[in-house]
């Protein structure tokens, strides 16, 4: 294990223990999330700075709990605590200590915490940020930047949601069986939103690179561990892992963007690809296909290039056709257009794009990238160049912008010679 990955393992361990403790403390401290976070946050920061040097302690939860309690007691002695439910928090910490002494495994109540974060009473735009902050301990400025929101606005959004949880007494419990599917979908969607905060490069890249890729994968793995038999959760995890497997191939050593078709497959992570495929096979046993399993399967076909040396576009096109019965997302339609163009030619792909709703598309970058690509493939250079301009103007990531500018120049040169 190299230094970076051992550091990452330590951070993951700290996060794991932190979230497990927090899930235990919050409901036992009157549902007061802010106070429970405050009580644990210093201990969590101490773990992040001390564990990489000294190693992860044998009982990480106990370490965090002892550290948190000591700091709370110190602050109390100085008369410096500002926690709203101080006595309740200290009592909850004592309960946690007792639970730790009595059992080998500390109870994992994080699923209840996830259900609270994605509760129907919580504004949908706050759900993913809540998961990231409460379950992962991510700081507000990081979350705000990833979601392209001002930190003060994000902070307000989170405080409002937490107040709601406390005041509306949103229960920390596993929902009844009939509510289960819908509530679980809400958690899954919140995690997927976190995965999708990145830039629009989906068709060039096979999938979107995200600022919060690793965090979202951590949450998806957690959810899959807590609820192991849900095919769409397995599918979402597989989709994320396939995308993540290519992270080192997306940029050249000089920092230039490398589209999927040109990526050096030696830079793909074989172990992540194998893991993703393992989850997909497991999901397939439930014979209940869905959007995430299909998207995961499409990425799996792309990954097979590693073995076969070619991309099986016929199979990909078939998967997209089924996917479009499951979702009206623009991404699915655009991906389908590209797949059709690979099988039947650019003109047929353009027909798919032309059939889409123009109002939804005027500022949708992947649409303009795909359209430019297919117009150029059809020899309609003038229109292609207008589409390239629009795509470049809508691109936020510099490497992709430079790539598209080069594509436009190439297309202009091609027009000259034809």
């Amino acid at each position, binding site marked *: 294990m190299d230094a970076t990955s051992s550091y990452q393992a330590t951070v993951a361990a700290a996060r794991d223990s932190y979230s497990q403790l927090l899930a235990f403390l919050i409901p036992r401290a009157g549902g007061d999330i802010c106070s429970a976070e405050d009580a644990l946050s210093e201990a969590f920061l101490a773990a992040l700075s001390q564990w990489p040097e000294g190693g992860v302690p044998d009982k990480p939860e106990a370490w965090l709990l002892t550290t948190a309690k000591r700091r709370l007691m110190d602050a109390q002695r100085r008369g410096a605590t500002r926690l709203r439910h101080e006595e309740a928090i200290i009592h909850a910490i004592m309960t946690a200590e007792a639970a730790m002494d009595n059992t080998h495994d500390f109870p994992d109540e994080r699923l209840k915490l996830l259900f609270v974060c994605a509760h129907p009473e919580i504004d949908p735009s706050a759900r993913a940020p809540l998961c990231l902050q409460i379950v992962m301990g991510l700081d507000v400025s990081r979350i705000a930047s990833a979601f*392209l*929101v*001002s930190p003060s*606005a994000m902070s307000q959004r989170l405080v409002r949601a937490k107040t709601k949880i406390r005041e509306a007494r949103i229960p920390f419990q596993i929902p009844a069986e009939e509510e289960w599917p819908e509530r679980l979908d809400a958690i899954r969607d919140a995690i997927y939103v976190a995965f999708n905060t990145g830039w629009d490069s989906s068709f060039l890249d096979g999938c979107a690179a995200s600022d919060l890729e690793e965090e979202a994968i951590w949450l998806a793995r957690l959810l899959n561990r807590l609820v192991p038999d849900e095919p769409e959760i397995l599918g979402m995890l597989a989709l994320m892992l396939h995308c993540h497997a290519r992270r080192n191939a997306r940029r050249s050593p000089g920092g230039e963007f490398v589209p999927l078709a040109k990526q050096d497959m030696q830079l793909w992570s074989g172990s992540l690809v194998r893991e993703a495929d393992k989850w997909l096979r497991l999901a397939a046993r439930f014979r209940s296909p869905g959007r995430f399993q299909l998207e995961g399967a499409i990425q799996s076909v792309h990954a097979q290039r590693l073995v076969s040396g070619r991309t099986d576009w016929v199979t990909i096109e078939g998967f997209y056709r089924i996917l479009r019965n499951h979702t009206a997302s623009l991404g699915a339609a655009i991906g389908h257009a590209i797949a059709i163009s690979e099988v039947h030619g650019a003109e047929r792909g353009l027909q798919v794009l032309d059939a889409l709703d123009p109002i939804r598309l*005027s*500022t949708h970058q992947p649409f303009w990238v795909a359209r430019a690509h297919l117009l150029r493939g059809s020899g309609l250079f003038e229109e292609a160049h207008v589409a*390239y*301009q*629009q795509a*470049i*103007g*809508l*691109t*936020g*990531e*510099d490497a992709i*912008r*430079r790539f598209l*500018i080069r594509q*436009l*120049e190439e297309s202009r040169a091609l027009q000259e010679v034809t």
Partner: protein
Amino acid sequence: MQYALLFSESSKDFALRNDPEKSPAYWAAWSAYSETVASSGIMVCGSGLQPPETATTLRIENGKRHVHDGPYAESKEMLGGFFVIDVPDLNVALEWAAKAPSSSYGSTEIRPVLDPNK
């Protein structure tokens, strides 16, 4: 709601404008961005600005005029241009600011425009 997007660039970025090798990509990025903003119907007004060394600064102190060449104060990043856009809220303004080339190499400040009726 109107927001000013203030595009800041370093002197290195300003130099790209006349770099024989790199200027085409610089201008391609900016012209695509301006056209996209204009064609989306949110543009109120805006302009690119010539580099800071072309500036002249005037101050009047106690009735005495001070005119000097160059910007008011040298700083790491200087104003390279601005747009005023009309969008529903700050989140949308941020989305448009994120697509500005300056956000990737310099910075973009988003400032609400004063409402003259208040």
